[in-house]
Structure formats: C-alpha cells, structure tokens
C-alpha cells in the first residue's frame, strides 16, 4: 500500500515537473518585451583556451571549407562544455551540458566574444525548449546594440521569415559579461517551424571572396561548400542545383529571365527581402558593399527552388539616405532584373512602399520599437564595461562609450522618423 502511495505521489510530482517545464516556450525565450537573463558556467581554464583558439578556429574552419586539409596538429580545441541557465520569471531553467564555440567573423573578439550555444552538441535529444542551438550575439560592431534586433523584428513584421531575437543580460560564471542578443539559429528546427519541412538543403553563406552570382564554371566545388556551406544532409550533398541556378541567373534569355530564375528561387520572397534590407540601409547584406553576404539559402525538399533567409543585421541603419538601388548593378541577378524583369522590380518597389508604410514616420512603428528597446537595454548597456563598436566598418573593434550608445540611438530615432519619406521620394524619382 505504502509503495503504491509512493508511486502515485512520484507520478504526480513528475507530472508537475513536466507541466512546469512545458510552460516555457521559445516564444518566452525570444519575447522582446522582456530583458532576458542568461547565465553560462564554464571552466575558467576552458574559457582561457577559448580565447586562445578563438581566431585559429575561424581560420581552420574556412580552410576546411575551401577543401584544404587541416592538420589535426597542433590540437586545437574549438568547442567547450558549458552549463546553460535561462532565468525566466525568477525560475532557473537549466541545461547542464551544452557546447559553445566562438561566433562571427568581423565581429569576432576576445574582449566580448559572441557565442554559438549548441544544446545538442553532446546529445542530439538534448534540445532546449525544442531548440538545437542559439547564438548569443555580442553586437561588437554596433554602438546601439539594437541594429540586429530592430531589423529582424521589422522583417518579421513585413512577413519575411527571419530569426527571432531578444536582448539578454549574459553572465559568465556569475560575472556580468555584458548585454547580448539571443538569436534564433537558422537550422533544421528553424526551417521546420517556418516552412513545415527540414529535409531540404540548408546552406549558410560563408563570405570568402566578393561574389555576386557570377557564373564560376560547371564545377560544383566553386559554389559549395564554399561559399554555400551545407548545414544538413551532409552525407548526400547535392550541389548541382546551385550550379544550375547560377547558370540560369547568368544565361537565361532576357525575355524568360523571371520565369527561368523563378524555377530556382522564390523571387517574390527574395525581392521583398531585398526591399526590407534596402529600407533598413543594411550595408552588409545580399546587396551590401561586400557583395553577397549574410543569408541562408534553403532548397525545398524534392525541388530545385530555394528561399533566402536573412542573417546578421549588425550593419543596418547605415545611412539615412541609402539608395534603394544601391549595388543593384554589381549583382548579376539584380542587374539583369533591373534590365529585363520589370515584374520583379515592381515587386521590389511595392515591397519598399510597404516597408515605408510599416515603419511609419515620426511616432510610427519603427520609432516606437527603437524607443522601447533602447529604454529596455539602456541600464544594461551602461553597466556593460566590455561593449565594443566599429563606426564605419573599419574592421577594428574598439571600446564603446555610453555617449556613443546614446548618439547611435538618436541616429536610429532620426532614421525611423525620416527614412520612410526618403524612400518614398526615391521611389517616385526612379
């Protein structure tokens, strides 16, 4: 009898725990109305090693992607075990064994590193709220620390599939490590939740050289794994549709350009995304100043058609008067669209108009969002003694002051108030 009672109480206790745990969702983690708190615990020796190997690991990864044999000697540790804690409504939700490595290229820093936290690093079933991984972005190039989140929130408001994110105070071994953005990773789980499938081909664009969809020959290795790095289905790589896609972008007759390329790319979605990126004046994007960059490409299962997914908006809000056709001429796809596909340009112009409407002018949505976020993070930014920034994308990260934060917030507010009118003016003049 007693053992039965124990069993029943035990069952109820486990049930309670389960219900308690299931009360949190990814919506809670990426809820921008809350300044999240994340605590990472890492062995101090591991963290010292992390800083030592931070840049070596990046170099090795790029070499491996380029097909070079990277010697295992000397042994370089790039992943480290951590204990991950998310403090939600006063409750500590813990994942005891996650893995971290350094994240980012130009934003990579040993003072305030960005982290990729891979919950499933040591066990595939070890998801956190159903997520395999998140990125803790240090926003080291952005004095406002808001470019990324404001831009992605705006994209989603426009109906563009984009990662969710929220600001978080991050503590490393109980020491405040600064204000970060917790970013939803673009992985098979992201693809599944947004497109209802994950067995297609997901590629991350790894910038290695300036490329604007020029045809580089029929060899698939010219396109993947670098710059298009496969993120899933690694056993059976299928890069041929990429070659065909690029060939079509370059060689399709003008008259059939839209229909031919649309076999390979969801052009409606792409041109809406391009419009959103142009509206927020993203200097480092698909049509940025460094040629193609900062996107994922997902090819739907059983098809040759792909969709672009935006990534890394650190360099958004670059200038107020960012030209809406900036760099259109340096990318084969947009150059040819401009010359021969008025239907695509019409989509683009409509999307820009919608973006301007959605952002609003003074007191509009964009200004409200910037005001809300800046108020939410201000104190945490002030307390962040490690914050970095890089005005003008010089490639050199430097310590960032509170005044620089305020100046950038002021600029973003000005951008929010004036950008819509400026874009409309450009639309009417082109």
């Amino acid at each position, binding site marked *: 009898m007693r053992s039965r009672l124990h069993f029943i109480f035990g069952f109820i206790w486990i049930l309670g725990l389960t219900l308690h745990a299931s009360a949190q969702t990814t919506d809670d983690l990426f809820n921008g109305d809350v300044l999240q708190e994340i605590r990472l*615990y*890492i*062995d101090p*020796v591991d963290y010292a090693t992390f800083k030592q190997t931070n840049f070596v690991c990046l170099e*090795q*990864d790029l*070499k*491996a*992607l380029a097909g070079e*044999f*990277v*010697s*295992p*000697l*000397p*042994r*370089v*540790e*790039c992943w480290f*075990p*951590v*204990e991950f804690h998310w403090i939600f409504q006063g409750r500590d939700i813990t994942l*005891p*064994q996650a*893995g971290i490595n350094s994240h980012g290229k130009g934003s990579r820093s040993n003072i305030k590193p960005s982290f990729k936290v891979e919950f499933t*690093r*040591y*066990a*595939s079933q*070890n998801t956190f709220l159903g997520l395999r991984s998140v990125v803790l972005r240090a926003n080291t190039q952005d004095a406002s620390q808001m470019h990324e989140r404001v831009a992605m929130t705006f994209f989603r408001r426009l109906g563009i599939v984009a990662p969710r994110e929220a600001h978080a105070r991050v503590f490393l071994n109980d020491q405040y490590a600064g204000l970060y953005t917790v970013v939803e990773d673009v992985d098979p789980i992201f693809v599944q939740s947004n497109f209802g499938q994950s067995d297609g081909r997901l590629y991350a664009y*790894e910038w290695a050289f300036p490329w604007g969809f020029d045809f580089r020959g029929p060899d698939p290795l010219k396109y*993947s*794994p*670098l710059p298009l*790095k*496969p993120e899933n289905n*690694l*056993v059976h*790589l299928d890069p041929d549709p990429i070659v065909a896609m690029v060939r079509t972008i370059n060689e399709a007759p003008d008259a059939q350009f839209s229909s031919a390329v649309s076999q390979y790319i969801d052009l409606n979605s792409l041109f809406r995304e391009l419009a959103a990126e142009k509206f927020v004046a993203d200097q480092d994007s698909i049509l940025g100043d460094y040629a193609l960059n900062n996107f994922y490409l997902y090819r739907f299962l059983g098809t040759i058609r792909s969709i672009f997914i935006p990534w890394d908006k650190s360099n958004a809000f670059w200038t107020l008067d960012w030209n809406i056709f900036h760099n259109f001429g340096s990318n084969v796809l947009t150059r040819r669209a401009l010359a021969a596909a008025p239907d695509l340009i019409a989509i683009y112009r409509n999307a820009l108009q919608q973006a301007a409407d959605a952002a609003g002018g003074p007191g509009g949505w964009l200004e409200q969002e910037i005001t809300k976020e800046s108020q939410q993070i201000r104190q945490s930014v002030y307390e962040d003694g490690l914050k970095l920034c890089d005005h003008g994308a010089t490639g050199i990260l430097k310590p960032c002051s509170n005044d620089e934060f305020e100046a950038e917030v002021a600029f973003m507010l000005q951008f929010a108030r004036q950008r819509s009118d400026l874009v409309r003016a450009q639309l009417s003049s082109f």
Partner: protein
Amino acid sequence: MRSILVIVWLAVPAILFAQNPGEVEEDTTAQDEAVHDSGGFARLSFKNRPSLRLGEIAEIDFKTKWHLDFRKFSPDIWNPPGVVTALPQDPQTFQLTRGRFGFKGHVTKYFDYEVEREMRKTFNDVNEWHPWKDNYVDFNALSWLHVKVGKFKVPFGLEELGAEDRLDYAHKSQVTDTLSPARERGVMLHSRFLRRARLEYEVGVFRYDGENSDIHGQPTAGRTYAARLTGQPLRLFSGLPRSIRHLYVGGAATRGRMFEGRNGIKGETVSGFTYFEHMYVRGYRTRVGAELAWAEGPFSVKGEYIHVSEERINQGIHGEDLPGKLTRGWYVTAGWTALGEMKARGTAPKTPFLRGHSIGAVELSARYDVLSFYSDPGPGLPSRSPRAPTILPNGERTWTFGPTWYLNRFLKIQLNAEREKLTDIERKAVLGITTFWTGVLRVQLAM
C-alpha cells in the same frame, strides 16, 4: 615511385633467403647454424641475423624489421564539408608501417643491451613521434635480480609486450593499442624465480605513462609505477594433466598521476576516426590487467583483460570532482596451424617455403576484442560532454581474422580483415553507418 623502390629493395633479401635452391637438400636445422664464420677473436656469423662476436666479451646482433601494408577501408574515409579533421586524410593504399634498424647483444655476462630506431620517416611522409624504440641496458646483477635501465616497454599487457614481428595479426587488438602503456623511459627490476613454475616478476618506475597514451607525442601522465607477475604456476601441480599444466597466467598493474587537462584515453577506429574524445582528467590513472595463454600442438588460445580508471578531480564545470572515467577491454584470440608445421617458439615454419615440397606454414587466426568507455555513476543524465559527470558509454567490438603465411624465418605474409562496430550511434564516423571494415595485406621482413 619511392614506395616501389622500397618494395623491390626489401624483396631481394626475402627472395634470396626464401628460395636458395642450394639449401634444398640441407637439414632444416642447419638454418640455425652460422652461414659464415670469419674465425678469430672477432667472428662474424649469420645465425638468425648478422652477428659480430668479440670472443667472450661481447656480441652484437644486427636486426631489422619491415612492414609493407596494403590497406583498404570500407566505408571509404570521408570528411563532411567544412569539418576540420573529422577523419584523417585519405591514406595511401600502400604504406610502409615499419622500417626499423637496430642491434642487440651482450657485454660480458653481466650486460644485455638493445638499440633500435624507426626509420620509416626517411621513406614516408609520416609523423613518427617516437623514432627511438627499445634502447636499454640490462644489468644481470644476480640470478634473482636484473636491473633494466633505458627505454623499453612498461611491463603491462601480454600482446603489447610480445614482439611486433611475432604477432598473429597485422594490428594489435584495439584493447592493447588503447589501454596498454607501451614504451617509456625508466628503471625496472626483473628476473625469473621459482623456475619450475617459470615465474617472472617485473617492477619498475617510469618517467611518463607510456607512448600509447600520448597525444601527438606529448605525455598525458607523469611518473608511473608498474608491476607484473607472470608464469605457469600449474606446473607445480604434477598431478594435473600435462595440457593444463603449461597454462600461462599473469597479472599486472600501473599507476601514475595524469597531467591536468583533456588527457583522458580516447577511442579511435583502425581507420583513425575518433569515436570517444579525450576527457578532462586530473589525478591518478590506474591500470589493472590479467592475461592468459595456452597452446597445445597446432592450437593456441590467448586472452587478456584490462581495466583502466582515470580520476577527474575538480574537472566539473563548477570545479567539482567528477566520478572516475573507466575504460575496460578484453580480447580472446585463437590460432590453428592449418598447413605445415611451426617451430616450437612459433616464429618460423619448421620447413621453409620451396624447400622440398614445403609451402612453409599457414596459420589461421581469429580474434574478438571488446573495448568500453564509461564512468562511475554520477548525477544527471549521461552525456558525451568532456566534463560530463556521467559519461555516456561508448565502445567498439572488433572481429579480426585471416591467415598468416610463414614462408621462412624472415618472411611472412598476413591477410587480415577487421570488422569494427561502434555502440554509440551518434558518435559514428559516417552518418548512417556504425560498422567499419579494414582490409590489410602485410608483407613482413624481420631478422
């Protein structure tokens, strides 16, 4: 081209020794006699190897060992795109895996010595972390006390301590390769005692833990103590059947303090894929082993069990102590001389190939070895994290089988198939596959 030259160069003496038609009518025992003797104080002879004898003062035997391997892996070695060294670079089908020169002998009746160096880096582009092999002096102080100083094998492991050129297989068992210490610099007391039971003791202290546990040539543990006791104790019981009395048994142990860091023993397939990563360790590494061997006529059986524990003091993420990491393995191997007849020592055929109608001897062997990595129970769910309190177990089970053709005392050819199966499907080398085959054809020349 260089590989072909090596093969041709090595094949010349092998053919000469194996097929000398002039020796066909000679008594087979004559092979062990000197083929040339210069006479006088300094006498050069060729017994099992070229040998220089300086009266009763000293003897120098020259020795060499060559292994020429042709290897194939299935599935083929493969790296996922952009992953750093998930698997080693595609190896060449042909590899020179041994190319050693050395000499051994004695000075007076008190000193034995050996010097040996691996030279394959001269012919191959390989990493050879420890080119110097056995390099020691053994002082025969008393009949019950010998003192060995220098670099030699730590006294642990039946298969590890056997000469590589006398192995029944191209590769040692995974258990031996992973868990035995192998060579190290040190001092060892050893001798036989209780001769009727053929007992032998070995007790030593070594600078590090042995080369097998090194990581890219760097030791993972400091001063290590080792002891081993072996023999045939059943010989003391004259009432037992003769076939049981010569059962060989042994036990050994080592203990050394590990260097703090990611220095735990790792698991790796023959093809080089790491299926169990180095774990963070601190404290003592302790090995305990038991061994057994038996032979009767053309049949032989050997087996070994090894248990290794590695402490993980302060290795938790919060600096807490973690339960000890454990590695356990055993193997059993059996052989049968199916064709021809071997000499008593089992190193050469009684009648060499092409002498009379002899084909030499062919031995068929099979080995099964099991290797497991795990930990003492700890808090939380088992994980693959290198700082996991409870380590998610992993291991492999390996079947090795194939014939060894002993052409003569210098030359043998081995054809081995190895089937490895990993137990943790998420640590597999190639997605969707947990079973790995390795095929090896080895030509061995040793003298």
